[in-house]
C-alpha cells in the first residue's frame, strides 16, 4: 500500500517536465513553492500549537532583500540569497521575542500586526521598495552555471529545494526536539515541570519556521521575477494558514495538500468558475464538516476504514 503511494507521488512529481506543457509545469512549480511556505507555517501551527496570521512577513522580507540586493546594488545571487536568509532569520528571532509574550488570539494578533507593519513600510518607503509599483526585472540565479530561465529547469530546481526542505523539516519534527515541541504544545506546564523551557522550545521553532518561510520567499521572487507589497499582506498569510488547516495541520503532508488545493482553486479553477471565491469558502466549510482534522488525516482515516481497521 505504501509503495503504491510512493510511486504515485514520485510519478506526479517527476513526470510533468517530460509530458506537460509549460503552463502546467509552471503551476507545479508554484504549488511546490506554496508547499514549502505552508510546511514552514505548519511547524508553528500544527506542531507548535501557535496560530500565526503573519507568516507572509518572512516570505516578503526575504523576497524584497534579495530583489533589492541583486537588482539595485549589483550583488550576485549567492551572496544575496545568503544575506536575505540571514536577515529574515534574524527578523524571525526578533519577532519571536515580541510575539511569544502572548498566546492564542493575542499571538495571532501580534503576528498579524507585525506583518501589517511590514506591509505598510513596503508601501510607504517607496524610495527603497518602489512602493506600489513593486520591483520589476528581477533575475533568476544560475546555480553551478545552469540557467533557470526555462520552466522545466526552474521546476527541477524548486523540486530539489522542496525535497531538501521536506526532509529537513521531517527530521526536525521527528527528532527529540520535535517531541519536546509537541509536548510543549499539548502540556506546557508538565513540560516545564520536567525541566524543559517551553519558551525556548517555541522560540527556536519560531525561528526555524521563519527560516523556511524566507527560503520559500526566495523561490517566490525567482519564480515571479517581481515583488509587490501585496505579498506581505494578511491575505497572503491567511491563504497559507487556510491551506495548512484544510490539509491537516498535525501532519507533514497536510500543508502540501492544502497549499495545492488553495493554489489550484485560485489559479486554475478560476478559469472555469467565476465564483471561485465562493467555491473556496464552500470547500473549506465542507472539509471542516466532513474531515475536521483536515484532508490528509481524514483521507487516511477513510482508507483505514475501507481496510476494516479501527483508527
Amino acid at each position, binding site marked *: *500500500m*505504501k509503495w503504491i*503511494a*510512493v510511486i*504515485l*507521488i514520485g*510519478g*506526479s*512529481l517527476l*513526470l*510533468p517536465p517530460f*509530458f*506537460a*506543457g*509549460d*503552463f*502546467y509545469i*509552471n*503551476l*507545479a512549480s508554484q*504549488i*511546490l513553492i506554496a*508547499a514549502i511556505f505552508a510546511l514552514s507555517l505548519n511547524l508553528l501551527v500544527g506542531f507548535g500549537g501557535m496560530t500565526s496570521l503573519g507568516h507572509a512577513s518572512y516570505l516578503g522580507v526575504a523576497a524584497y532583500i534579495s530583489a533589492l540586493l541583486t537588482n539595485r546594488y549589483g550583488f550576485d545571487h549567492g551572496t544575496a540569497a545568503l544575506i536575505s536568509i540571514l536577515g529574515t532569520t534574524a527578523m524571525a528571532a526578533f519577532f519571536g521575542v515580541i510575539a511569544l509574550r502572548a498566546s492564542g488570539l493575542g499571538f495571532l494578533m501580534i503576528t498579524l500586526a507585525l506583518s501589517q507593519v511590514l506591509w505598510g513600510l513596503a508601501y*510607504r518607503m*517607496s*524610495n527603497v521598495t518602489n*512602493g*506600489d*509599483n*513593486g520591483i*520589476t526585472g528581477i533575475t533568476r540565479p544560475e546555480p553551478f552555471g545552469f540557467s533557470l530561465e526555462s520552466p522545466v529547469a526552474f521546476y527541477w530546481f524548486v523540486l530539489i529545494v522542496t525535497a531538501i526542505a521536506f526532509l529537513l523539516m521531517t527530521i526536525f*519534527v*521527528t527528532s527529540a526536539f520535535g517531541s519536546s515541541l509537541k509536548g510543549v504544545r499539548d502540556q506546557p506546564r508538565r513540560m516545564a515541570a520536567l525541566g524543559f523551557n517551553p519558551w525556548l522550545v517555541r522560540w527556536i521553532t519560531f525561528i526555524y519556521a521563519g527560516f523556511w518561510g524566507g527560503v520559500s520567499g526566495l523561490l517566490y521572487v525567482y519564480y*515571479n*521575477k*517581481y515583488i*509587490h507589497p*501585496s*505579498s506581505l499582506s494578511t*491575505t497572503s498569510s491567511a491563504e497559507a494558514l487556510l491551506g495548512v488547516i484544510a490539509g491537516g495541520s498535525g501532519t*507533514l*503532508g*497536510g500543508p*502540501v*495538500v492544502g497549499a*495545492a*488545493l488553495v*493554489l*489550484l482553486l*485560485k*489559479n*486554475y479553477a*478560476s*478559469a472555469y468558475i467565476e465564483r471561485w*471565491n465562493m467555491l473556496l469558502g464552500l470547500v473549506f466549510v465542507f472539509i471542516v464538516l466532513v474531515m475536521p482534522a483536515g*484532508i*490528509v488525516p481524514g*483521507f*487516511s482515516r477513510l*482508507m483505514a476504514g475501507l481496510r476494516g481497521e479501527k483508527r
Partner: protein
Amino acid sequence: MSISRRQFVGVAGAGIASMAAPNLVFAGSSDPIRVGLLAAKTGPLASGGIDMDLALTMFLKERDNTLAGRKVELIVADTAGVPATARTKAQELVEKDNVHCIIGPLAALEALAIADYLTEKEMPTLGVAAAEDMTQRHPSPWFVRLTSTSAQCAYPLAEYSVKELKYKKIVTIADDFAYGHEMCAGFQRVFEDNGGKIIQKIFTPLATPDYGSYVAQVKSADAIFLGTAGSNGFRFLRQFIEYGLKDKMAVIGGMTALDESVLRNMGDEALGILTTSWYSAELDNPLNKAFAPVFRKQFKYDPGYYAGSTYVSGEVLEVALKTTKGNVEDKKALMAAIRGSNADTIRGVIKFDEFGNAVGNVYIRKVTKSDGRLVNSVIKTYPDVSQFWTYDQAAFLKNPVYSRDYPPAKNLEP
C-alpha cells in the same frame, strides 16, 4: 511517521491531467483569432474589471465575433487584482490558451508584474494600466496603451483651472499609491507652471473606510482636486459634502474620480463638478453615438473609463487586423499595424507615439443632468494631447518618474 498517501491532489492532479493535454500550436487562417482579456473580476478592482469584460464582449458580438473576415474567440481571465495571479493568468493565456494578443490589464501593479513576461513572449498587448514609465523610461515594443498615462489627462485640466476657472490655490487628494502620486504630480506641475499654487497634498491609505479625519484636514483653497480611483473619490466626496466643505470650495477631478460607473449611484450633490478624461459617454461623434446608447440599453448604465477602454481596444485591433488582412500569426506585422493604426474610435482618433502611448483628445467634462440622470457633459476638448504635454520630450525623460515627492511641492502651507 509514514509518508504514505500524501501529496495526491495537487501535483498528481496537475501532472496526470497535463499528460493528457500536451500543448500544440495551431497555425492557419481557418483557426479563430484568440484574444485574451486580463481583467480583475473579483477583489477591490472588480467594478472596473466587470465593465471591461462587458464592453469587449459586446464589441465582438456586434460584429458577430468576426474581425477582418476571421472568427474571434475571447478568453477572459480573472486576475483578482493581485500581481502573482495576474502573472499566472497571463501565462495561462499565452501558454495554455495560445492567444494571439492580450487586452488589459487594468492596474499598474498587474501590468508591471507581467511586463517582462509579455515582452519575452513577444505578445502584442493593448494595455489599459496608466503607469507612466511603461511608456516612458521602460517601454516595450510589444506594448501599447490606448487610454492615458496617470498624468496625461490632468495636464489640460490644470491649465484650464488656471486660465479659465482662475483658481489660484488648490488642494490635491489621492490614494496613496503610484497612480495617485503620478496624477497629482502631473497636475501640480502644469498648475504651478501656469502660476497657480498647490498648497496641500493629501494621500489617503488604500484601505480607508472612513474619510472623516481627512476631510477635516483639508485647508481652505479655491478648489480640491480628486486624484482618486474607483469608488474612493465618491466616498470622500460624500463626507466632504457632509462636513459642509462643498459650499466653500469647488471640486475638480481626474479621469477616474467621477467615472460614469460611480455617477450612477450619486445624487444632485455631484452636479457642476468638473473632471477630465479621454472619454465621456456623452461624446458627440458617430461611433460613440452608436455605442453608448446601446450599452446603456443593455446594461442600464452609461459606459465609462473601463468599458470605454476595452471597446477602444477592440476598435484599434479591428483596424490593425484589416491592415494585416486577418493575419495574426505574423506578430511583428500585427504589432506594427496596431502602432500605425490611427484608428477612429469612440473617443476620437488616436495615434500612438514612439513609446506606444496614445495621443488623442482629452475632454473637460461637467456633471449635468440629462434625461433625469447624471452625465459627464463635455465642455471643452483639448486635441492631440500627448503624455509629455508641451514639455520637451528628452528633458522630460531625463527627470525621474513622477512620485510622491517629485516634482517637489514648494508651495505647501504648514
